């Protein structure tokens, strides 16, 4: 349950990048979160309102795009998408896979902003 510290760092990062857009208001913050990132999406959303209060993100929407786990399957010579996180085997050939290609992402993809008065 470290979602509050995660949303706090999102607020910090977005605030930093807003310095290039003075007066802008954030409408939406879009995240890419891997299925193995060990964060609970509902919990992120719950904390978002609290963390965003009093910042340019107040009232904005947090949109979380969950990425499935992708493993490299050596026998298939292909990157394969897993259906869940209960078995790290290639869904095509059934061989165990140990080379993770996607699934631990925890990043801010983009923000949607409304320009401030001085930018009009």
């Amino acid at each position, binding site marked *: *349950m*470290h979602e509050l*510290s*995660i949303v706090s*760092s*999102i607020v910090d*990062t*977005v605030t930093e*990048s807003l310095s290039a*857009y003075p007066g802008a208001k954030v*409408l939406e913050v879009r*995240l890419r979160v891997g299925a*193995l*990132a*060990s*964060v609970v999406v509902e919990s992120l959303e719950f904390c978002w309102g609290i963390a965003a209060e009093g910042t340019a993100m107040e009232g904005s929407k947090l949109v979380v795009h969950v990425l499935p786990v992708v493993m490299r399957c050596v026998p298939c010579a292909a990157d394969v998408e897993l259906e869940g*996180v*209960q*078995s*790290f*085997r290639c869904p095509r050939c059934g061989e*165990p*896979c*140990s080379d*993770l290609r996607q699934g*631990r992402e*925890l*990043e*801010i*993809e*983009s*923000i*949607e*902003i*409304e*320009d401030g008065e001085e*930018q*009009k």
Partner: protein
Amino acid sequence: MTTRIVELRRGILKKNDELAAGLRASYAAAGVLVLNLVSSPGTGKTAFLERTLKELRERGARVAALVGDLETDNDARRLAASGAPVRQINTHGICHLDAEMIGKHLLGWEGVELGGLDYLFIENVGNLVCPSSYDLGEKIRVALLSVTEGEDKPLKYPTLFNSADAAVITKMDIAEPCGFDRELALRNINEIRPGIRIFETSAKTGAGVEEWLGYLAKAREGAE
């Protein structure tokens, strides 16, 4: 009013990742093998580490440990009985250790220089969820699981087990009375982290400890 999309592509834990990368470089430069021990509360991390520190010291290795807990320095005092330098990190409510806490506690640690160590063990806060997100710059992340916890622990906490480099099963001396299904536990660990090294240990009887120490010695050679 005009709206626009601004691409950021920024890692949310970037600050921790950067600090961890710095720590990793300093560990490598000092030639010290750093391990991060993660498990639920009550798995026996401290008992396992007590045994490990004692055995390594008897073999002439230079060891130290950082131990994380929300409160109290009980674990640090237990571990210090091995004679190794030990420093407690109290997180006061935070559910994991992060790279900044490690960096701070490495500074000003009386009598301890990274360059004077062969092994540094970091005992994380007992938690199988949050520590998996925070890189501490370690070379080896160890997931521990005791025979009393249920063989499906790896399936319940795949994020942690999948990010581990080695798995340690603790309390093997009471496996039988606990009805521990060894085969099933091994299969579940392998299902989540195929091919991972697994050590079946008892801090009490010393079972599996030789094999574990052999693994550490080999890993250290690779670290130098």
